[in-house]
């Protein structure tokens, strides 16, 4: 398993923060884990043999493995992995809540944008079409999937330019998006998911109903996960105009409970819809997290195919 065995093997988020150009960032991230592995699992998303199956009437004759027939006098069908002209759409949350962390350096949005860029870069490498939708409570920017190299550049440029604004409200947007993305493909949602879990479930269901494969990259800042504040603090809402003056120490337990509760709900929602939920902590190296997820995904696929 290719998890972050040693942290220095991966890119420190702080180092990455200094790199402003998104294309370089993406390359750094992706190459980081690709070169870090013995064998790239993404070398040939194309026609790839998976397994044999005994012929049954109705099967396409083209797929009969004649070599096996010649040796065993039996008819076997050669099965292949799904051949792609994969269309992937990256949905990037641009709401204000993603700005958390700006003051201490790398914001959640930076992390999310880099994730998006890395995924796009990765897809591009495999000649797949990648599209990008940036949304808050409306669709801010939308680029249709394309595998053209210049398209990637455009996408990265957009990511560089983007600035988070407004609240998150996905119910309407996802309804519309689900309608727009006709062809079955992959949908990658990158967000902090500060939403009503029911609403989230409903929205993600839109994509699942259209048989898209959905991956959720859940971006969380470590402050939000551990709540390390000590002294008297005035918390101001990033999205809503809310204020709370309190002693964080006294609230910590309850807060962490609430977060934990929420995370459980989100995981449950995702699991029930067959959606991959990947929690990305902005304090951890992105390449490590991605490679770990991708290798997990590959393994799972192999297991699924075998059965």
């Amino acid at each position, binding site marked *: 398993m290719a998890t972050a065995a040693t942290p220095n093997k991966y890119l420190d988020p702080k180092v990455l923060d200094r790199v402003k150009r998104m294309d370089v960032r993406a390359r750094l991230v992706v190459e980081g884990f690709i070169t870090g592995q013995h064998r790239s699992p993404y070398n040939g998303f194309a026609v790839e043999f998976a397994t044999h199956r005994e012929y049954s009437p109705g099967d396409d004759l083209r797929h009969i493995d004649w070599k096996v027939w010649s040796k065993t006098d039996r008819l076997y069908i050669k099965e292949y992995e799904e051949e792609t002209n994969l269309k992937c759409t990256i949905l990037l949350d641009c709401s204000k809540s993603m700005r958390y962390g700006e003051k201490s350096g790398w914001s959640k949005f930076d992390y999310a944008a880099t994730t998006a860029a890395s995924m796009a870069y990765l897809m591009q490498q495999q000649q797949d079409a990648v599209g990008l939708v940036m949304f808050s409570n409306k669709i801010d920017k939308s680029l249709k999937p394309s595998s053209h190299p210049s398209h990637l550049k455009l996408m990265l440029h957009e990511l560089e330019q983007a600035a988070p604004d407004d609240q998150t409200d996905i119910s309407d947007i996802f309804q519309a998006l689900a309608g727009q993305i006709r062809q079955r493909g992959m949908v990658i949602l990158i967000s902090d998911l500060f939403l009503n879990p029911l609403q989230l479930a409903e929205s993600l269901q839109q994509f699942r109903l259209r048989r898209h494969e959905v991956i959720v990259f859940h971006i969380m800042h470590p402050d939000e996960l551990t709540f390390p504040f000590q002294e008297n603090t005035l918390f101001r809402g990033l999205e809503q105009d809310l204020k709370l003056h309190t002693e964080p120490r006294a609230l910590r337990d309850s807060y962490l409970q*609430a977060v934990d509760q929420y995370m459980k709900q989100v995981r449950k929602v995702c699991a029930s819809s067959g959606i991959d939920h990947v929690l990305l902590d902005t304090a951890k190296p992105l390449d490590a997290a991605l490679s770990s997820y991708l290798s997990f995904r590959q393994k799972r696929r192999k297991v699924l195919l075998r059965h």
Partner: protein
Amino acid sequence: MSWLLTWMFNPAMLVAGAAAISVPIVIHLLNKRRFRIVDWAAMDFLFDADKKNRRRIRLENLILLALRCLAMLLLGLLLARPFLPSELAGRLGQAQEFQRVMVVDDSLSQRVLMGSRPAFDEAKDRIKQLIQMLARDQNADYLTLFLTSQPDKPVMVNEAITPDAADNLLARIDELQCSDNVAQYDEALAEVRSYVESDRSTANPVVYVLTDLRQRDWQAPTSSDAENAPHKILSEISNSVPNTFIVDVGSVLEENLVITDVRAEDLLVANSIVRFSVSVTNFGERTAENVGIRFRVDELQPVTDQIAAVAPGQTETLVFPYLFQIDRDEFDSLDFQEQLVNNLVNYRVTAEIVQDGKTRDHLKHDSIGYFAARTLQALPILIVDGDPSVVSERSESYYLQSIGLPGTGLLVDSATAGELETVSLSKYRVIFLCNVDEASPDRVQSLQQWVADGGGLVLMPGDRVRATTFNETFYKQGNGLSPLELKRADGDATKNDWVFMEVIDPQHPALRVTLDEDVGMGKVELFSWWETGIREDQVDKVVSVPIRLSNPDNSPAMAEKTLGDGRVVTFAFSADADWTMWPAHPTYICVMWDLVNYLVGDLTEMETTRVGGSASRLVDLSMYDLRVSLTDPAEEKVETIAQPLDPTAASQESVLYQVRFDDLGRRGFYEMNLRRQTGEIEPTLFAVNVHPGEGDLKRLDVNALPDDFFGPQSQVLTADELVQKNESNTSNEIWPQVLLMLAVILGAEQLLGWWFGRRR
């Protein structure tokens, strides 16, 4: 504000503390204004948590704030030094327990008058007032009372002072009598110390020392004993007992004349003139003039004499001659000697300072001295004449016989050398052997025993004595009676040549008369004498030579040997005038008479005892009953049983027992009565005098003492303050409790602060 003063010493501090309550509030408010601003995304979770915890946080903050305010208030209260009036403490049900330990000086010096009453009575009144007050208040009080005259026997031990018991206690205090003894503060305080240390059951020991603050009682007599000086012990006590009070109940009067000594200068023998010397010491600051002294024997008419002046600190002595007369006709002539020999007649001799208006003597009880004159009715002596004659002038003992003149008290018996074998030796105190050189071995043996038992033997060998016989009988190579070995008769029988006697030891009690130059013996001629030998190894041990001759050898003229309790004196010449002119010289009878007194010995020295001492005497069970009674000056009678002299020996044959009465507490005459087997009572008189030093009434100057003379925590009070002091007893101050509360509150604040603030 004034009501606050009844509660605390510095109410202003409490007000300051109340004002300081605002400090934590202000700090709290200032803290509220100081905060960080965080732009936060996950507000929903935060609100969720806040909703659950808001009330709890507010409550915690209020608790902490209240604790801090309370701490400030307590700090103010602490500095204000509050105290609870003892009645209030009682009403609150917090009645305290007090173990009150008193040491009361009941020594003789407490008899000094304060106004018209003895100081001791005043002290008793104070104690009674204190008891009455303690009985009324709400506290539980227990009283333990030591007297300095008998430290080991506390008068009261842990007696509860309650309204019911108060009457009984007051009656018992009333019964206390001032003793004639000295104040034994060191022992009394040592008892108190061990008592206070051993009894930790009550929280509040209070020690009172009711004293008249005499210098002599409080200051260590010698530097080597400084550690055990009374004030050092008290200092130790006060270290563990903060409530230690020295209460001055003494009189300030210090002028005092004391009869420090009454003694007989001569042997107490009836029908002889005995000189009594009476010593008077002036312990005051001013010279006492014309001090009259009344001298009285028994109830007879007293004799009064005067001392012109006694300077401060000085002792003057006045001599009263007295003749104890016994009418000898009263005695049956046959038993006459028998009765006289063993009977002592007791005379009560008192010497008293005459108290007229001019005498400045504030303590009367030591102005009287007692002397038990246990007088021999007669002093029987035996003169054995080895050369008797029907013509009295020619007998050997002719000159010696004259020592039994009237006025000497001597009863002289004569015997020949032959009669010596049969006389009862025990009848006699002194025996002269004049010109005797032989005796049967049994008789010599019994003579030796008689001397060892205290008899006095004088050997005066003359011309009838054969040296070898004498030496075999009396000298026995130095192991016999005589200190001198006779060698040969020397001198000029024609009396044309002579030597003189040289007094070597003029301080010898028998030779005092020779100190007088006018009547000195220097010119007494000695024509013949015995050349004598002496065992050099015995010289200055058991043998001494007070007189030597002026012959070329300087041979001894008189030698003395100590043998057991008695002595033997040997002269180197005869008792008559054949060899020397001395018997005709005026010093002869004087020396012989002093010699008799000297040989009879120490009868007079044991009569005077001090208060607290003991009276004892031997009881010969063959003559007396085992049961002995003692009558004290107040006519109270106690009985005891004689104990074996040496209980460890446990010899069944021993008939010599001892009877002993300790702790004679009163001054005056004690009469010990032994019952003879025949039924008659034989009294022995003892005189008990006060300690002369007790008459030194000089007081400690409390103001001039170092601050911690009685210990850093003790306080010196006047008698009036004793009762008042108790009202604001220092232990009612509650600052230690306040301090404890403050510490608890601060601790609780820290603990809660940590508890509330820990990460959760």
